[in-house]
């Protein structure tokens, strides 16, 4: 413990500065009143390119990602590098989709993806399914941010749950007060720290380890010696399909998460989004370099810290590497970057989850005449409940359970693809077909995940997302990403269901959007009118 005093002092100092910023944020770009979801939940819907870049980057590239991706590369090699193609594909993939979502959301005042589905397909039930899917997928994601903080605390020799509870209590308090402005302001500090730490790491550590060539050679030697079939410096015949489908499937899923959309809807016009599609890949480069920290840990002979259960916790590999390589004060900065890195996404995710509850459950089923102020009040309270739930998840349940749930979360959020993403392009699907496809995709996805064991941890079920094609009867060792198969089943069932319901002349819901709604931009009278309306309550 005493060996970590300097690190701890730097960590606590930076954490306190950031917490102060969180509270002050409510006065930043101050609105007349913060008591509406447009203000509390979307920061006034007026963020420019820079703020959006920091906010969305800080939101998508979470502390857990920064800890878990290098841990995966450390353990399995090339497979863990899927994070790079995943985050290359994502921006050109959603480039045209997000600007449509922005336009239609600004005309109609949508705050959540379920709001859009409600209006597009005229079905509160389908919207409820999309909202619940979003909530279930987001909750474990918030809990995982705690795993990120815990990893650095463990590396500083701090055990016990009290520090995590204090950290989340502070986070809950300033999110309650400042809404989306808090993570937007903190993201500046978080991302700056992360960029400094990683740039220092990729210059300083390879120099100490004899250059990049010897780092990769050390990793190759480790994988050549290991008996595990799936690891290696490159992919093998069995895991290439998994690599491709996991990268593509994850890219499809990312912007279906309600919290990803929150940052997009908070931007002030379509060009801000387009510019960010070119600027956000800077974070992908950062993530690629962070992934390679896993190999640096191999070359440096870093050992993960052994957890209370007697097993080494691979998530501590990057903190352990920093501790081994950097001077104490800089290790403290690096730990603070990861710790603060957990707060930004946790805040945005809890805001997005709270907005889903407020808009698609509270307003739909509990108080149809809710005013803006009531909506903001409910969202603020729910954001507290969500964070208490996340802390309880980590305290009461095995953290492994959150990791499993997050894995499942990626598969289930993909099942909203036909209603949310394809819905932006076509109204062809019947609401009944979409519900049937959603259900079929979920059942198939859960069944496949249930069948996957993880021999490394001795688990029989929910051991990963790589499904052996041999289970389908193919004579091969190849594996495929579960979410990819599940969403294809979903699409097929949705299409067949649509044809069936049309043939049976089952009534479909009305479409409250019109074609032009998908192309309007800032300055259009219909967009402005909506925002004035929202501000006048």
């Amino acid at each position, binding site marked *: 413990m005493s060996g970590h005093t300097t690190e701890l002092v730097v960590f606590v100092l930076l954490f306190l500065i950031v917490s102060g910023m969180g509270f002050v944020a409510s006065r930043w770009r101050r609105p007349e009143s913060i008591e509406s979801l447009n203000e509390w939940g979307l920061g006034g819907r007026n963020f420019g390119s820079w703020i959006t870049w920091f906010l969305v980057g800080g939101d998508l590239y979470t502390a857990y990602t920064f800890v878990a991706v290098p841990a995966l590369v450390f353990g399995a090699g090339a497979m863990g590098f899927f994070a790079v*193609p995943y985050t290359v594909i994502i921006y*050109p993939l959603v480039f*045209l989709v997000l600007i449509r979502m922005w336009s239609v959301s600004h005309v109609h005042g949508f705050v959540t993806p379920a709001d859009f589905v409600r209006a597009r397909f005229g079905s509160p039930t389908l919207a409820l399914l999309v909202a619940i899917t979003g909530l279930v997928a987001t909750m474990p994601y918030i809990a995982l941010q705690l795993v990120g903080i815990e990893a650095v605390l463990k590396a500083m020799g701090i055990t016990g749950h009290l520090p995590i509870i204090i950290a989340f209590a502070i986070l809950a308090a300033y999110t309650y007060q400042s809404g989306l402005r808090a993570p937007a302001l903190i993201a500046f500090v978080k991302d700056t720290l992360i960029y400094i730490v990683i740039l220092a790491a990729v210059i300083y550590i390879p120099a100490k380890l004899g250059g990049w060539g010897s780092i990769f050679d050390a990793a190759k030697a480790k994988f050549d010696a290991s008996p595990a079939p799936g690891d290696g*410096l490159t992919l093998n015949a069995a895991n290439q399909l998994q690599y491709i489908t996991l990268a593509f499937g994850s890219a499809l899923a990312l912007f279906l998460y309600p919290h990803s959309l929150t940052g997009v809807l908070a931007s002030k016009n379509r060009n801000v989004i387009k510019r960010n599609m070119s600027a956000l890949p800077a974070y992908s480069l950062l993530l690629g370099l962070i992934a390679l920290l896993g190999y640096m840990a191999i070359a440096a002979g870093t050992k993960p810290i052994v957890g209370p259960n007697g097993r080494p916790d691979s998530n501590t590999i990057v903190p352990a590497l920093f501790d081994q390589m950097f001077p104490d004060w800089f290790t403290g900065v690096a730990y603070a970057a990861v710790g603060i890195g957990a707060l930004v996404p946790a805040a945005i995710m809890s805001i997005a989850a709270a907005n889903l509850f407020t808009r698609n459950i509270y307003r739909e089923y509990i108080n149809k005449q809710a005013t803006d102020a009531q909506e903001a009040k409910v969202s603020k309270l729910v954001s507290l409940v969500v964070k208490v739930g996340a802390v309880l998840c980590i305290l009461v349940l095995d953290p492994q359970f959150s990791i499993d749930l997050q894995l499942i979360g990626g598969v289930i959020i993909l099942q909203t693809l036909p209603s949310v993403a394809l819905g932006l392009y076509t109204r062809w699907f019947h609401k009944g077909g979409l519900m049937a496809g959603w259900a079929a995709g979920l059942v198939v996805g859960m069944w496949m995940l249930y069948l996957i064991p993880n021999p490394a941890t001795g688990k029989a079920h929910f051991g990963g997302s790589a499904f052996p094609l041999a289970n389908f009867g193919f004579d091969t060792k190849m594996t495929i990403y579960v979410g990819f198969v599940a969403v294809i089943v979903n699409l097929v069932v949705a299409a067949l269901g649509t044809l069936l319901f049309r043939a049976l002349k089952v009534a479909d819901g009305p479409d409250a959007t019109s074609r032009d709604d998908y192309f*309007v931009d800032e300055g259009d009278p219909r967009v402005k009118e909506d925002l004035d309306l929202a501000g006048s309550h």
Partner: protein
Amino acid sequence: MTTGEPGHPRTDRSPWNWLLLVPIVLPLLTFLFNADEPRLLGFPLFYWLQLAFIGVGVVSTTIVYRMTK
């Protein structure tokens, strides 16, 4: 094309949008990069080429943004 003339239907359509397909498809073609050699600055092909695709993504989205502004 966000500022359509009154009477003309607005649209996001543009031939430039096809350029977006390049950075979506390239990173999925594992046969292009699944090898150790040739190395660049010590990086095996698998790593440096995939990192280079980030640049392809940036260039493509920037061109599409500029051409459809």
